[in-house]
């Protein structure tokens, strides 16, 4: 791109971004503090943002702390992922009614949907969205529910200048830097004392249009250098990493690895990891009918490889032990996902590590298998 739009916006003016989006009829979703965490929800203006708040994360632990500065996006990521907007946790597929003793599917009009703008999408999350796009849109059977929600969404990325202790996007090649074409707008926040500003770059024409409406200054070389240095520092800060070389094969060869028994002792089978994972997409279908028997509905809801019912077929569960279920999750995520979709199923966001009530760490478990795969006992 020859005339890329790259501007500098004073933090106090970022409110104009909201106005510009609202004027275009977008419903804005972004970070806000609720119940001791930074979650994603509908937001109206900058006062909803987690100003001066950061997150501390480790395996099985999360807390908020105040920051010395007034940063609006000075945290890593929280328990929610954007998948809840594109791939809802529960969605009605159709309703049916009896008509002279015959069930007929009701043609219910889909209510018009207000276009959504997602504000504060991290690099790993953009990578996760790209993975779900591949899984749910590519191929002959696109998921309509996902497509309808995803296609009009306006994405405003936010590069990280700090990482949480659970982040490992660097080693997964998914962050912390955002490829500028991955979003409509990419922002980076610099909250130096007394000098609080954003670098804003447009990745699409509509992103450019929005940006040029905001009060701004041209971004200089020094500004861009400061931003790229800060983003690179976030990558260097990361304590965790996942060595993916040969991981696909190592997991394939480890069906009987003794380490699975060790994880199974700790794993609660609670499914939290799959619920918080921004790429996990598995669902179950539920048919319900009312007492009269005249009305029925079909619902789709998130399910997980950690439930015994998920692999239940005639005669029982295919993956009947906790060990088999944990093995399925990590092997699919890091190995067979590559065969299916040409990419790892993990973007290194670290959510499954933080939000596992048993503090199980996917990077450690993968390493335990990988590091010993040809040596038998661990």
């Amino acid at each position, binding site marked *: 791109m020859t005339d890329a739009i790259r501007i500098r916006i004073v933090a106090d003016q970022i409110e104009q971004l909201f106005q510009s989006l609202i004027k275009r009829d977008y419903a804005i979703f972004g970070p806000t503090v609720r119940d001791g965490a930074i979650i994603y929800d509908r937001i109206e203006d900058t006062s909803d943002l987690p100003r001066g708040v950061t997150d501390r994360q480790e395996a099985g*632990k999360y807390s908020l702390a105040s920051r010395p500065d007034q940063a609006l996006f000075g945290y890593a990521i929280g328990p929610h992922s954007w998948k809840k907007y594109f791939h809802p946790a529960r969605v009605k597929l159709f309703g049916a009614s009896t008509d002279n003793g015959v069930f007929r599917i009701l043609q219910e009009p889909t209510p018009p949907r207000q276009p959504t703008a997602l504000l504060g999408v991290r690099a790993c999350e953009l990578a996760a969205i790209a993975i779900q796009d591949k899984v749910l849109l590519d191929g002959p059977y696109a998921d309509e529910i996902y497509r309808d929600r995803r296609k009009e969404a306006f994405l405003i990325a936010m590069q990280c200048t700090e990482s949480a202790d659970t982040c490992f996007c660097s080693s997964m090649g998914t962050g912390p830097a955002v490829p500028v074409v991955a979003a409509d707008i990419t922002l980076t926040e610099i909250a130096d004392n007394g000098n609080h500003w954003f670098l804003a770059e447009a990745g699409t024409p509509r992103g450019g249009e929005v940006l040029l409406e905001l009060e701004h200054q041209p971004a200089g070389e020094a500004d861009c250098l400061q931003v790229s240095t800060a983003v690179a520092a976030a990558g260097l800060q990361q304590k965790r990493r996942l060595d993916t070389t040969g991981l696909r094969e190592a997991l394939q060869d480890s069906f009987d690895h003794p380490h699975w028994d060790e994880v199974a002792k700790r794993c609660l089978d609670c499914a939290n990891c799959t*619920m918080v994972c921004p790429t996990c997409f598995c669902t179950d279908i539920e048919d*319900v009918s009312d*007492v009269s*028997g005249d009305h029925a509905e079909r619902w789709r809801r*998130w399910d997980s490889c950690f439930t015994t019912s998920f692999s239940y077929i005639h005669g029982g569960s295919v993956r009947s032990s906790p060990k088999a279920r944990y093995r399925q999750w990590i092997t699919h995520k890091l190995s067979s996902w590559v065969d299916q979709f040409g990419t790892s199923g993990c973007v290194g966001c670290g959510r499954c590590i933080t939000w596992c*009530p*048993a503090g199980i760490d996917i990077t450690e478990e993968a390493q335990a298998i990988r590091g010993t795969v040809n040596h038998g006992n661990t």
Partner: protein
Amino acid sequence: MKKKPRIGVFKFASCDGCQLSLLDAEDQLLAIADAIEIAYFPEASRTMAKGPYDIALVEGSITTHHDAQRIQEIRRQSKTLVTIGACATSGGIQALRNWRDVDEFIRVVYASPKFISTLKLSTPIAEHVPVDFELRGCPINQFQLVELIAATLAGRRHNVPTYSVCIECKTRETVCVAVARGMACLGPVTQAGCGAVCPAFDRGCYGCYGPMDSANTASITKQFRILGQSDQQIARAFRGFNAWDWQFRKASEECEHK
């Protein structure tokens, strides 16, 4: 017209809360009354028609000789027997006496202990007769009960999940109180069904629905210790409404005997 299925609702040692859940299902009550014949339901109606019953809904645990005989008769009279609630399914909160000397309780509590005839243990229905389905909870969730009735009437499989409360918690977007607040939450080992009410109100799960289908009580015990819970506190956490369920019982006894 097809003959309506006959339902009987029976009570043993319990607080009546689960039967009330049926009466609370106001929106659906007329439809239910329309679709079934309530043949026996002393809590709600004077009709006390004799069996046989197509479906028996049984609330409460067995605590007396008389009840131990009565449940045999109900089983004989019923095609399908469904227990409703923690008392019927695992012995209820009254099963706490199972670890103590009941005779001493009787001496302390009652003015004329000689009139009291009771068993040493409070036990679930399934320890006495075969049970076709156990609907969990203290109390049960009225929507699950209506769903079970609707599914039975339609001859379809019910949607009563056996996975953890955590899935409901995440579905309603509650921030995990175990991870974000360091609370001891039984959600990961407890069966869903309540809609993850307690974590949504800043409490750890109390385990009202009993163990989920692959409850790892040893791991959650370890986690509770990491969160600073004493063995006594952990034993108490497992000794709630489902104290006598064998998995929770084993977990609580392991803490007690440490």
